[in-house]
Every structure is written in C-alpha cells, then in structure tokens.
C-alpha cells in the first residue's frame, strides 16, 4: 500500500461530521455505501450545501442525519416527511432531503409518505430498504418478502410486501428510481437528477442487513448480498412499476422508472392564492420571523 505524498482527502469526508466517525453501522451494511453515492451526487450536482437540509426518522438509516455535516434533523419515527414538509414550506429556498429506512417511511410513516407524494411536496426522499426493521433487532417490515424468518415471524413471514416504486408512483411522485447498494454510480447519478427535480422524488436503495436479515435467513454476509445484487439485478429504465416487486430470491429490477412533470405543492398553492386574491395576495419567499 502506498502513501500519497500530497495530503488528499476522501471526497466524502467534507460532508461528514468526522468527530462522530466511526459510525454505528454493521460490517457489510449498505447504508454507508449509499452515503458515498450521496456525497458524490452533491459534488457532481454542485448542490448549494448551505441550503441543503437533511431530515431523517428513526432506524439505522435514520442515523445518516447524525453523520452528515449539514443542517440535519433526526426526528420521530415515521415523521421525517411531515417535518420536511414544514421545513420546506417555511423556507422554500432550502433543498430538503429525507433520508430514512423502509420501516420508518412505509409502515409508521406510510400515511405521510403517500400524502406528501399526492401533494407533490418538493422534497427528495432516499429510502434505504434493507427489508427489515434493523435497529430494533430484525422485525418484519412491510417490505420483508414472504417466507423469510424475522424476529417477529420466527416461523416465516406470510404477509405480502409493498412494492415501493409502485406505491410511490401511484401516490403521485414525479421521480421514482430503484438501485441497490451495488449500483454506486447509477445511484449517485439518480440522486444528482433528483436534486435538480422539482416535486416529490423518491429513490429506493436496496441494502444488505447482514446482521439480521441475511444472517437469520442464512443468506451470507454483506459481500455475498452485494454479489447477489450484481448477479440478479436487471437494469430496466422506464419499466412499469407494477412489475418491479421484489421477492425472497427473485429478480431485482432496478433503474429509473418514473420521471414526469407535475406542479409541486408550493407552486399549486401560490397559483391558486394569486388567482383568487390578486393584489391582496402577499407572497413571501419564506415565513421567517424577524
């Protein structure tokens, strides 16, 4: 191994609270990998970092907010999206990213997710889907495929799992993509596209949870899972989201599925009020107090 003679920094470190590294994620967990893609996307998209805010919920992925060196909000379980909605509406110049997990966003947070998508609130949602409730020890999540073992389904899961891209598209999202932690470059590119998009945007990132999901189901470790993603993923940009459901060992369809235009919530609100009130409408660029 060679040492650089010039001090060169890992490009991700400028976005991290280095005083909190090492993080708590397990060996082979894909959350950290997704953060690398996120950092790459921030650089390539030339995002104005000062005006970027990140909101997360509770869970392993929710801890991302604590490790990134941005205005970051670690909120309550399932409620990152409504918090983000308030943040964005009060301060529209902020670019608001929600970074949270599958259980947080689709179980307890499911209602808020579909309404924010319906409204087309201009927030970007990165959902790391490890098919399980990881932080609390590996319970069944609404994304856990059938016939796998979890701590609350010790004899095997039997309830069907959500197809996240399908659900989010149906609810109204204008940008929907899925990648796995293996697809680091495509993921970074999708995130870059998403930052520039106006409206409710969603990227699902499939990730190993080697400690709980994979281990309990004898599916190997993080590396085995990443190799599995490489092997069974099929990139199908534009695929109908109704056809991208996941299963225990079936094909994984990845790609950008939805990229459409629709007025975002802020725009709709503005237009309606301006039409109705004319001169009396007081448009503010932010709701700030003094």
């Amino acid at each position, binding site marked *: 191994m060679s040492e650089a003679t010039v001090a060169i920094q890992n490009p991700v470190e400028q976005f991290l*609270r280095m005083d909190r590294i090492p993080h708590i994620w397990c060996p082979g967990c894909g959350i950290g990998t997704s953060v690398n893609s996120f950092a790459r996307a921030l650089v390539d998209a030339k995002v104005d970092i000062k005006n970027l805010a990140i909101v997360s919920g509770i869970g392993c992925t929710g801890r991302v907010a604590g490790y990134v060196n941005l205005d*970051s909000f*670690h*909120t*309550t379980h399932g*409620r990152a999206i*409504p918090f983000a*909605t308030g943040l964005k509406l009060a301060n529209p110049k*902020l670019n608001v990213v929600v970074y949270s997990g599958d259980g947080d966003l689709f179980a307890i947070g499911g209602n808020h997710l579909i309404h924010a998508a319906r409204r087309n609130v201009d927030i970007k949602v990165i959902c790391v889907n490890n098919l399980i409730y990881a932080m609390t020890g590996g319970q069944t999540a609404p994304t856990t495929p059938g016939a796998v073992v979890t701590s609350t389904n010790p004899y095997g899961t039997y309830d069907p799992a959500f197809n996240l891209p399908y659900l989010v598209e149906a609810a109204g999202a204008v940008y929907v993509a899925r990648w796995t932690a293996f697809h680091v470059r495509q993921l970074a590119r999708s995130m870059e596209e998403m930052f520039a998009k106006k409206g409710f945007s969603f990227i699902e990132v499939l990730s190993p949870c080697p400690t709980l999901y994979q281990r309990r189901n004898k599916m190997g470790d993080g590396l085995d899972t990443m190799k599995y993603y490489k092997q069974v993923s099929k990139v199908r940009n534009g695929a109908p989201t109704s056809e991208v459901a996941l299963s225990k060992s079936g094909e994984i369809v990845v790609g950008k599925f939805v990229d459409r235009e629709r007025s975002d919530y802020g725009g709709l609100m503005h237009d309606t009020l301006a039409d109705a009130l004319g001169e009396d409408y007081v448009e503010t660029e932010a*709701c700030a107090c003094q």
Partner: protein
Amino acid sequence: MHADPAGVLTGTHFLDGDHACCEGALAAGARFSSGYPITPSTEVVERFASRIPTVGGTFIQMEDELAASITLQGAVWGGAKAFTVTSGPGFSLMMEHIGYAAMTETPCVFVDVQRGGPSTGLPTLPAQQDMMQVRWGSHGDYEIIALCPNSPQECFDLTITAFNYAEKYRCPVFVMMDEVVGHMTEKVVIPPPEQIEIEPRRYTTLPPEEFLAFKPSEDLVPDMPRVGEGYNVHVTGLTHDERGYPDMRPAVQDVLVKRLQEKITKNADKIVLYEEDQIEGADVVVVSYGITSRVAQRAIEMARRKGIKVGKFRLITAWPFPEKQIAAIAAKVKALVVPELNLGQMVREVERAAAGKTKVKLVPHAGGSVHKPEDILQAIMEVTR
C-alpha cells in the same frame, strides 16, 4: 420588539374565542400553521387559512394530528413562528411530538380547545379534562407552560403571551381553551401594533465556528441557530450534548433533562400569571381557571352577598402551577374550593401545594356544560359552615 403590523387587525371586534385566538397568533407573528380539523378547534385554523395569504405565510392542512404536530416544528426550524390547534383526541395523538419539541427546545404553540372525553366523548361540548395531560402527556421528564384564557379577549391576549413564552424559553407552550370560551362571542379589542410586545426569536449572534447549538445561556435556555446559514445544526430527539450530538451516557442525560426542567422551574416567577381578588382576610378562596372561573365569579358574588368572606384566585398559567401563591393562601384560609370541568385534575396540584394546611374541596363536573353557580356556592357554604 413590536408586533408586525401585517398581522394585527387593530380595532374593536365581536369575535368568538377561536377567532380571537387566531388573531392573537397573527399578531404574535405566527406565519405558519399546520392543522387537522377537530371540533371545537377547527375555526382557529379556518380563519388562519383565510387570513394568512393576505398577511404573508402558509397554512397547510395535514393528513392527521401526528403530521400537524411535527410539520409545525419543521416550519419553526425553517424560521417561522408556528402553531397548531386541536382538541382531546387530536391532543392525545400529538403527545409524542410535544415531547420532541421539549427535547429539541423547539419554540412552538399548541392550542387545545378542550371538549368532553375520554375518547370521542362530547365533540361539541366543553370540559377541562386535558389539564393533567398537557403537563404529563408525553413520556419522559420535561416542563411546559400552559395558559388558560377565560374570555375571547384573553384568547387573543394569552395566545400572544404563549408565543412570547415559547420563544423566550424554547419550549412548547399551550393555550388551554375549552369549547365554551372558544365558541362564545364577546368584545375583543385589538390594539395597534406598537402597543403589542413581541418576543423575537433568540437567534445566536455567534458565528458557526463558535456556536454550540444546545449550550445554555445564563437563563438556562440556548440561543437558536439559523438554518441555511452554514451552522450545520444537528437536532435530534436522542439525548444529546451541547453540540446536539447524540450521547447516551447517564451523566449527559442528567445534565440535559434537569436543564429542560429547570429552565422553566427556575424561571417560574417570571412565567406564572394569576388573578387574585380579596384574598386578604378571606375565610375561603375559590381557585379556578378557564370558563369555570366565569361561573365561579358569579358564585363568589352570591356568597359575598350572604356575608361570606370569599377570595378569588384564578390560574392564568395552569403550568407552571402557582404553588408558592397557593401555599401562602392555604396557610391562612379555612378552605380552598376548586371547581373544574373534570373529575379532579388541577385540584391535585392545589392539594399538593396546600400540603395539608387547609381543607381542599373539589367541585367536579364530568363535562358537557359549565357548572351552575349554585353548585359552587353550595361548596363555599359547606366549607364555611
């Protein structure tokens, strides 16, 4: 600083409590509300929805109270003064986020227009059954401030007070109305903006390199950072250190949670508000709040006409509870009479503060209407027999 004229509807109005509360919020500088409809509170945000586009700000009706109670906190961190309104069942749903506001020291206002409970209860009829819940409803140790208006005028005035306390002490502050105060229509005088004192948000003057987001000032309250200005603030509901970083050590928990309490308890003298009348020489004092205090006033007058020396003590802040004042009164009177529209909530605080020095007589009411003055009069007469 003075109120922003854009939100002040100066003049003499005929408004119900809900509407007056909305005007109070606007006068206080509220420019964001996230709400969810629930009787008898809905008119507050309906009026806000109608007023705010001509004042400058945003209203959003969220999909439930779980969302409403956290969306307003996102807006607060986005720079706005923000509030929500609800009643019993919605209040119960908001409890987790009340704790989040307390833990993250997010200045915000929650209005609870109380109705009969428990559960769906009496949606259109009054009660004062959330008085303990407002103090203890969320999990963990924390302190809040709760104000009890007894008229539409007070709904206006005390909502401004609520916003001011919220900014000063960086905690959730509650306006505990009830269905009668909310729906009774009375004269409300809204002064000119230069006569309305507003507490500005205590933004830090330190640059990002020197600022610690949760390091308290002298008054035990930290200054707030501005989002979007490079402070890279981290806000979490986890126990955290002065940087705002999660820290699970018991020593850190001890420091943080005690400070969250002490910033209210040690400043209680500056927070507590009450109204007293003829306490000196009284044989019995009636302790009441909210709409019940209006009925109590009538009962007290009836008792005085009978020659009974009755004093009046009205809680304007129910929390922090005016324990010093009650303790002092308890030492000198034969009894305290506590009418409330519930089966005994604030009376427990009265008993606690009285510490056995005097008799405490509750005049309960399960809710659905207000007391009859005769019920309170009878209690006064019983304790002074």
